[in-house]
């Protein structure tokens, strides 16, 4: 049991440090806001006439130009019109002055590739977005969710289980927020989904474990709540490990497609998995046995 105590102490210390550090980073810098949240810039490359192959050439040469000039943030977003006449590259920083040369560069390349009558035009625009992280509505929704889950757990599994479930969700929520802030994972557009999952997943894991603890506790004449809690959670470690692996696999599956936005989503799914599983695994026995005494 000493090893368990040490594990629990380590968990508490690491979690507290992470949450404190995360909240500090969050308080100072806020979320890492990508192009769609904050004011940004875009480069629009358009061609006056559609030719087979001209669009592909423009994409290839524009990407080459970006690489040559050390411009990396273009990977954040790229859109094009269906007929290939317009390409939009989005940036979250001031576009370098070297963009002034892009139009000439592209037209030279079009001419060299026998698209002599096609003319490329490059416009650099300042963009104002209005999307804000709607913390009020989301907090209300998650608060109500947590309350309803608490009441459900209270009815089904009594007080200790319901408090353990709520505690797991709260710790997981804070951990997710902190890790997202510390790792500077771009928030938009899935931070709300991540926060919702970081409340739901630990709650459902914790509720099932706390039920088992209650049933075992009830079946004993002289129960020792701490040892029961630890034994049950140790017995369920495969379930927790499997859940963590499932989230990590999901994160890798979506990140491995190498679409920038989806890599942000993948990172958030991974953080959801870690914060949810770790919180439910450590917080449930701590709170449940704490209440049972």
């Amino acid at each position, binding site marked *: 049991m000493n090893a368990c105590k040490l594990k629990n102490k380590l968990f508490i210390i690491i979690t507290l440090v992470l949450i404190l550090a995360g909240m500090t980073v969050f308080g100072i810098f806020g979320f890492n806001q990508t192009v769609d949240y904050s004011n940004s810039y875009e480069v629009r490359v358009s061609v006056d006439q559609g030719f087979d192959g001209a669009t592909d050439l423009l994409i290839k040469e524009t990407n080459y130009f970006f690489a040559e000039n050390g411009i990396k943030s273009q990977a954040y977003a790229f859109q094009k019109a*269906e007929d290939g006449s317009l390409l939009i590259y989005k940036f979250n920083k001031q576009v370098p002055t070297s963009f002034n040369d892009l139009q000439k560069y592209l037209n030279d390349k079009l001419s060299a590739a026998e698209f002599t009558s096609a003319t490329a035009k490059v416009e650099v625009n300042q963009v104002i977005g209005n999307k804000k992280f709607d913390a009020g509505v989301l907090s209300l*929704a998650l608060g109500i969710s947590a309350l309803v889950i608490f009441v459900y757990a209270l009815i089904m599994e009594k007080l200790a289980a319901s408090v353990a479930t709520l505690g797991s969700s709260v710790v997981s929520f804070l951990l997710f927020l902190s890790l997202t802030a510390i790792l500077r994972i771009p928030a938009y557009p899935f931070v709300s989904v991540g926060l919702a999952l970081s409340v739901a*997943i630990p709650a*459902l894991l914790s509720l099932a474990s706390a039920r088992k603890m209650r049933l075992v506790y009830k079946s004993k004449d002289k129960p020792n709540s701490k*040892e029961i809690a630890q034994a049950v959670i140790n017995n369920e470690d495969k379930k927790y490990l499997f859940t963590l692996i*499932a989230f990590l696999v999901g994160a890798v599956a979506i990140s491995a497609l190498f679409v920038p936005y989806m890599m942000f989503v993948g990172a958030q*799914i991974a953080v959801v998995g870690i914060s949810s599983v770790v919180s439910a695994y450590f917080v449930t026995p701590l709170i449940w046995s704490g209440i049972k005494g």
Partner: protein
Amino acid sequence: MSKGKSITLLSIISVLMAFVLVMTFARFPIGEVKEYNSLLGAVELDYDLEGGVAYTLTLAKDNEEEVGDNVGSVIKTLENRLSALGYDVFSVKAVKSVDEEVTDYDIRIETKNTDSVASDIAVVAAYGEVKFYGGESANPTTEILTEQKVVADATYAGAITNRDNTTSYAVTIKFTSYGYNELVKAIDAAESSYYLEIKMNDTVLLSGSSAITKDVLQNGTVVVTSPSEASARQMALQMKDGGLKYKYDVDEGVAISAPYGEGVATKCAVAIITLSIILIALMIIVYKGLGLSAALSSLLFILIEGWLLIGVPGIVLSMGGVVGIMSATVLNAICMLVLTQGVKNEYVGSKKTVKAAVKKGFADALVPTISTCVVAGIVALVLLAFTSGVVKGFAITFGIGAVVALVSSLIFTRMFNALVTPLVKDKEKFFGFKRVDVDAKALVEEV
């Protein structure tokens, strides 16, 4: 169940599942002209996965009021209006050239391409105020109700079936007490019938061709109908909010690719399938025979979740929905783990036979499995009620997934287990059970 019965039933189910799997994921030509485009082709995708159309709003030359720093509030108004018209995923941005000579921002709206998108954007970007005209002849031209706010609220009230079996779409307009009292006064004062027409610039929102009576006003509420849902929603929006303070010209729009990149929907499908395959493989590796039953029901889970995306009306899949499906797949795996671990614990912690342990394990896992799905369902329902856009898309697919996961784990897993078990001779080996395993019960016994 006898061996023969098991083999027959398993064969039928396997053939059916194989057929549904092929129909779900395969693409193949039918004859020389048509092509079967799989389930993926039938799922309605939102703008962020499929692309859509981009409209540019340019400040009109005869615009009178300067926009200046109010461009943020223009964007917010446009976003609220798009939401009111039922658009979940869209992008509204102000765009201005870095060239110092350009002073005004254009507004770019990107959203899903629908039948009514052009007219919706025109309504959203419309300029002007709602004006009321009243008089004792049809189509009156005398402006009335100019002193205070007239319409308190206007909402789209849904479809109604007319006596001739045609469908109309209703809008409920609630007048303010000022509007209602003034209208009643005018109706009372009229020698014959009284007509009311509501317009915004040249657009007639409520035709003044029929007389209005106190009965029609129903204590300040009027129900009017429109021939299409889109026009009814547009009418409700304009009645309630009027037009923009600034006059913008709207261009013809250009089709645009998905903001997450081309082919993103297919990539998402690959990610979901990869996740499912790995989870199914893990279940079989970790839980052996029971894992096989769980894996087969997980396969059914994926198929049902996919078909529900087509079958449930009004679902448009966005990136939020994709994350919802992936989360529901993990949720389904968690339910399977609760079941399989429960059965395993029951076996190693007692002297029961495999059959008895499976029966007791499934029975004991009933409440935790239901609780797991209820918790997920609660979060999905609350998010659905309070949020919009990406989060709402997530809530829909996650909520559907919670229901399907419940059915899948409680019914399908039992069913497959009942079918597979009679075919196995050494059940203990097949299920990977060993009584020497250390489990919670044993530990607690020691305690």
